[in-house]
């Protein structure tokens, strides 16, 4: 395997009394889309900002394109592109002005006209930044991040706060970049984003990587715990359902029994028999394969958006 384009070892960072990073380690290979998945405040943005050279780490080692982000200065900045969690530009700057200005900062840059076209901003080229919608601003942020043909792209919560349709537009752009072989480090707290876009994912919580692997590998950890969500005509006690074959756990909320099973067909057969004996009826039944949310829940005991 070639040397990774991003290497992070035992990274630590403290802000006052808060220990933001407690020894984060991972690596990203060239052409890979790597996701840092975790709730707000987990340490994802701190990690990315250290890798972008925006703030120094307190301890550990970080390398991007073979360079130390803190000491390499503009040399690294020529090689990376980034979309910050919140991008802000002056209200009265025009779209084309902003893109041309950012292009001029780099030794090597793309044709800005083509970028505007590619990101669907051609018609808005004369518009002021303040006149753009949230989605258009984010597309401009992506165009600005790509203006120098970066070797590595950092996307910090690229779809946070955007409506579902715009989010899907951004996913399509990232998928296009992925197909073109761009190395991407993405932070997100959206499960769908991590599962759909990332080749590999590191789950981050309280400043630590608590698991990493491909989404499939991570979900495989929970494979023994497929979720069956059932509604009954008459609610049953969790303790009774827990006695069914191959059931590893049960909890109920709002009249929905969530049954974790290590053998779905056996559990369902046992459930039907049990309900017959109890003269109860099944109103609905859904089988949910494990998601990264389940993995996170299993590892931390919390939901991602708790």
């Amino acid at each position, binding site marked *: 395997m070639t040397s990774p384009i991003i290497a992070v070892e035992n990274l630590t960072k403290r802000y006052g009394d808060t220990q933001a990073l407690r020894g984060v380690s991972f690596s990203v290979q060239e052409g890979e889309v790597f996701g840092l998945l975790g709730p707000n405040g987990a340490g994802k943005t701190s990690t990315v900002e250290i890798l*972008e050279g*925006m703030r120094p780490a307190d301890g550990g080692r970080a390398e991007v394109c073979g360079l130390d982000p803190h000491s390499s200065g*503009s040399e690294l*900045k*020529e090689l*990376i592109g*980034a979309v*910050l969690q*919140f*991008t*802000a*530009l*002056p209200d*009265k*700057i025009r779209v084309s*002005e902003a893109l041309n*200005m*950012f292009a*001029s*900062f*780099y030794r090597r840059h793309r044709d800005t006209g083509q970028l505007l076209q590619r990101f669907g901003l051609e018609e808005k080229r004369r518009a002021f930044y303040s006149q753009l919608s949230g989605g258009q601003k984010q597309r401009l942020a992506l165009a*600005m991040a790509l203006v120098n043909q970066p070797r590595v792209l950092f996307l910090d919560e690229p779809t946070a706060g955007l409506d579902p349709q715009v989010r899907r537009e951004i996913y399509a752009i990232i998928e296009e970049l992925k197909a073109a072989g761009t190395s991407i480090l993405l932070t997100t707290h959206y499960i769908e984003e991590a599962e759909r876009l990332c080749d590999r994912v590191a789950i981050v919580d309280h400043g630590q990587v608590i698991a990493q692997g491909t989404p499939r590998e991570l979900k495989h950890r929970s494979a023994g715990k497929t979720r069956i969500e059932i509604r009954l005509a008459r609610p049953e006690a969790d303790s009774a359902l827990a006695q069914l074959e191959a059931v590893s756990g049960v909890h109920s909320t709002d009249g929905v029994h969530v049954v974790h099973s290590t053998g779905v067909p056996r559990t369902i057969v046992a459930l039907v028999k049990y309900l017959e004996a109890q003269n109860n009826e099944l109103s609905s039944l859904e089988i949910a394969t494990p998601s990264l949310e389940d993995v996170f829940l299993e590892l931390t005991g919390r939901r991602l958006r708790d």
Partner: protein
Amino acid sequence: MKHAWTLTKVRMRLALRNRAFIIFSLFIPLLFLFLFVGLLAHDDPAAVGYRLASVLSLTVMGSFWGLSVQLVTFREQGILRRFRLTPVGAGAMLASSILSNYLMTLPIVLIEFAVARFVFHMQGWGNLLGIAALVTLGMTAFPALGLIVASVTNTMQETQLINQLLWWFFLLLSGATVPLPILPDWLQSVALFVPATYLVAGLQTVLTGRGGITAIGPELLALAVSTGVAFFVSQQLFRWEAETKVPRRAKLWAASALIPFILLGIWETSRNRLRSTALMDYMSIQPQSDTARPDANK
């Protein structure tokens, strides 16, 4: 330098699209011109140059205010953060602040000068080289002080507070609004430590044609050194993000930008050069019958 020039061009365009900038940078200076020159020097072409010195000084000095506010706004809105990801350094960002301000203030200075000469019939042209040198160095030194204000303040409220204090000092103690020779003796001594005093006194000398570039050597040197020190200090203290608070000791370090004026103030206190010149410039515009002449040596 290329980055600074790109930023300069963009910042000029942004400023010209900002109504507040047009009002404060064009209409207010012209209002000052008509107040000072039109009202105070009416019917006396000999006094126009002296009064114009106040107007030009206010135009040149006023730039420190807009510059600090703009930089702090950019920082608070998170705009500077995005630039930090690019190869643009703090030096280019700061230089573009000064350069864009210079290029936009220069036409206003020229308009004021032309109106004084052709509408209010100023006598002669003054010493053009001296005027150009003072205006140019003034338009680098005062904005550079503005950059320091932006560097040492954490919020817009703090920035505005310091700007207000400095502005009133500059306005009242420099001789721009109240002529230096009619201030109480102790205030005249304090004024010798105020940077604006040197700009006003220098401009009075060259605009009344009473002295050339050699007569304003100390003023030019102080403004040049102050520009250099203030630029260096603001570059060291530059912050891209509002979250990065300025350390307390940095505020003391920032005061080092005033060292040239403290040294000049001490020198002037012993030499009494500026106060004598200011008195002579002031007397030159007084009617001959005026007997209530202030004494520079009292």
